[in-house]
């Protein structure tokens, strides 16, 4: 935590960048390389955020970087079939599948698929070469390189990731599923980048699943930029299910145009240290944003969600619900900021954060924020911290349900209010099932992993 330690991480990263710039650039695309220099300069100024940074008050990011990590600047050739070691937990789901291994897009069988209706799913590198106009317009257009050192760091280092493009009017009926796998023989830091473009009146559901497959320390620092143009609709579900030695630092930026609808659902089922930043900008009138989140933590896990919903124009609505259960020595934080800018009249913004603390050692910090500069608005927020309701528990026991089972049912009911927002039924059922398993402790070993790493 000392200043010198921070300096060291910063210098180390900058040196790493300078020493490997050729490799990094070579393994990426010129349109991404183009942004690196400015980003590393920004990082040089900003460094890794400290606890003094109000936004990172409850998450000690520096300590994450205090370990030694390998950084790959080219995909490692791994000679196995992913199918052999990894089974998706959502098997009934018929999806367009994309695989990312240690931050690099895996050919499946190609690195870029173009569907009949023009929908594109593929690697950032290949997409940049094929669709330069889209990259020039959208890549790094939202990411705040000037204020968050982690974002700048990602922009400086990111080489690959997933690109999804749904052209004007296209409706993608099959969900798009991206599976991010971490697997290495040494501790690993990965920084990749995703870009999702929803053109006018398009529709899609995107599901991101994060898994760790080997018993090593992993740090992922990921930036995702999402553009939802007029009348388009996107449901973006992210499921974090990694082991206790993994760290996820995610930065998701969304921008919505007129009458668009976006639902984000961030389900942090398992992971050692998770920090999710979600920035939602309502930039066109009539836009509708929904931000849902669930965090289930135990042992010494830490999950921190920061959300910022920016009502920049009139007549938009936002609805936010984050819920968390903290068991054993887990710590959690929620910081939700809603900004209603001057003249963003007729805004409706609702936010709620509820937490259950199960043990004397669990801790929660919650900080909802409303900043409102327009008068004709309806805004509210609420936050609660509590425990399982005694009356409800007794009611269930009086019906013959045992205490443990009753508690599980109540916790499940608590989480279901988030899960039920998922629109695809089969996915919703699978996630309900995973949450149920998680609450019963069955997921506490990363259960899809045959290696029993933790």
């Amino acid at each position: 935590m000392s200043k010198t330690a921070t300096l060291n991480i910063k210098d180390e990263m900058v040196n790493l960048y300078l020493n490997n710039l050729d490799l990094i650039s070579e393994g990426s695309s010129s349109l991404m390389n183009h942004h690196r220099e400015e980003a590393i300069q920004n990082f040089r100024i900003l460094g890794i955020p400290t606890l003094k940074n109000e936004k990172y008050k409850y998450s000690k990011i520096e300590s994450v970087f205090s370990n030694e990590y390998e950084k790959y600047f080219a995909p490692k050739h791994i000679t196995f079939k992913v199918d052999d070691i990894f089974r998706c937990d959502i098997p009934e789901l018929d999806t367009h599948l994309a695989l990312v291994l240690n931050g690099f897009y895996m050919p499946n069988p190609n690195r870029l698929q173009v569907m009949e209706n023009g929908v594109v799913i593929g690697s950032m590198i290949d997409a940049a070469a094929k669709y330069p106009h889209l990259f020039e317009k959208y890549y790094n257009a939202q990411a705040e390189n000037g204020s968050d050192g982690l974002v700048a760091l990602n922009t400086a280092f990111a080489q690959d990731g997933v690109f999804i493009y749904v052209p004007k009017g296209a409706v993608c009926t099959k969900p798009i599923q991206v599976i991010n796998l971490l697997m290495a023989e040494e501790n690993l830091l990965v920084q990749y980048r995703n870009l999702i473009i929803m053109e006018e009146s398009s529709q899609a559901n995107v599901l991101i699943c994060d898994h760790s497959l080997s018993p090593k320390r992993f740090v992922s620092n990921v930036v995702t930029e999402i553009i939802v143009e007029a009348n388009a609709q996107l449901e973006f579900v992210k499921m974090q299910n990694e082991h206790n030695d993994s760290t996820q630092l995610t930065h998701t930026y969304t921008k919505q145009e007129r009458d668009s609808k976006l639902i984000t659902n961030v389900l942090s089922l398992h992971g050692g240290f998770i920090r999710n930043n979600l920035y939602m900008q309502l930039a066109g009138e009539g836009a509708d944003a929904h931000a849902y989140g669930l965090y289930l933590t135990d042992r010494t896990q830490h999950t921190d969600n920061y959300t910022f919903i920016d009502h920049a124009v009139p007549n938009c609505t936002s609805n936010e619900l984050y819920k968390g259960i903290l068991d054993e020595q887990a710590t959690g934080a929620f910081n939700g900021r809603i900004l209603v800018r001057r003249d963003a009249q007729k805004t409706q913004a609702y936010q709620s954060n509820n937490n259950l603390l199960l043990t004397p050692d669990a801790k929660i910090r919650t900080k909802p924020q409303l900043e409102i500069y327009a008068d004709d608005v309806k805004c509210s927020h609420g936050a609660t911290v509590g425990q399982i309701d005694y009356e409800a528990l007794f009611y269930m026991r009086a019906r013959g349900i045992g205490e443990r089972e009753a508690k599980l049912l109540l916790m499940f009911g608590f989480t279901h209010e988030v899960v039920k927002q998922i629109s695809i039924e089969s996915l919703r059922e699978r996630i309900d099932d995973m949450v149920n398993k998680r609450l019963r402790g069955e997921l506490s070993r990363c259960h899809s992993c045959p290696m029993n790493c933790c």
Partner: protein
Amino acid sequence: MLVIKDLHAKINDKEILKGINLEVKPGEVHAIMGPNGSGKSTLASVLTGRELVEVTHGSVTFNGKNVLEMPAEIRSREGIFLSFQYPVEIPGVSMVNFMKAAVNEHRKYRNLEPLSASDFLKLLRERKELVEIDSALTNRSVNEGFSGGEKKKNEIFQMAMLEPKLSILDETDSGLDIDALRVVANGVNKLKTAENATIVITHYQRLLDYIVPDFVHILYNGRIVKSAGKELALELEEKGYDWIKNGN
């Protein structure tokens, strides 16, 4: 079946029950009446194992077993059912999941296999008809946003699902419209057999017109001060509680 002997109980150091004696045999219907705050619901709480109430003296046995030592869920599985005066809302937990868990726990206790999903749904449908409960209610979260009357009906529906040996109905009639009252009472009567018993806690004769009690007890200030046949309820309705208070 149920034997209560000299039962004393307190809530937060305040003695509420001051020596209750009561015996309920299979097939019997007992009505308990008494002014507000006299301890009727507290007695129901003691029988069902609410931890808030502390038993300081006396005993309760159910089919020969000491009830007071059992946790709430075991009492339920033994066959004691309480229709709550104030049913609890449980957001997020669907009625179906709730009942499935309860029914299967009861079955497990009796060494029976859990019901398959289809058998369970069949049972659910059947019992819903019995108490004429609106289908939509079982698709919602437990009691959440139910009207007062719907909650009470839902209690009887759960009773039908669990088929208890002893049912304690705590003011199940309050908040019911005339039709619902009849439906609830019919439900209770349909479920009645020679083996099970019912304790009806109520303020009104009206319910007792439908569910005819074998005995009526008047609970006053933590004690049963008077017990008699069904005519006692009529007498009470006519004379009011002052009659009891004045020491008759």
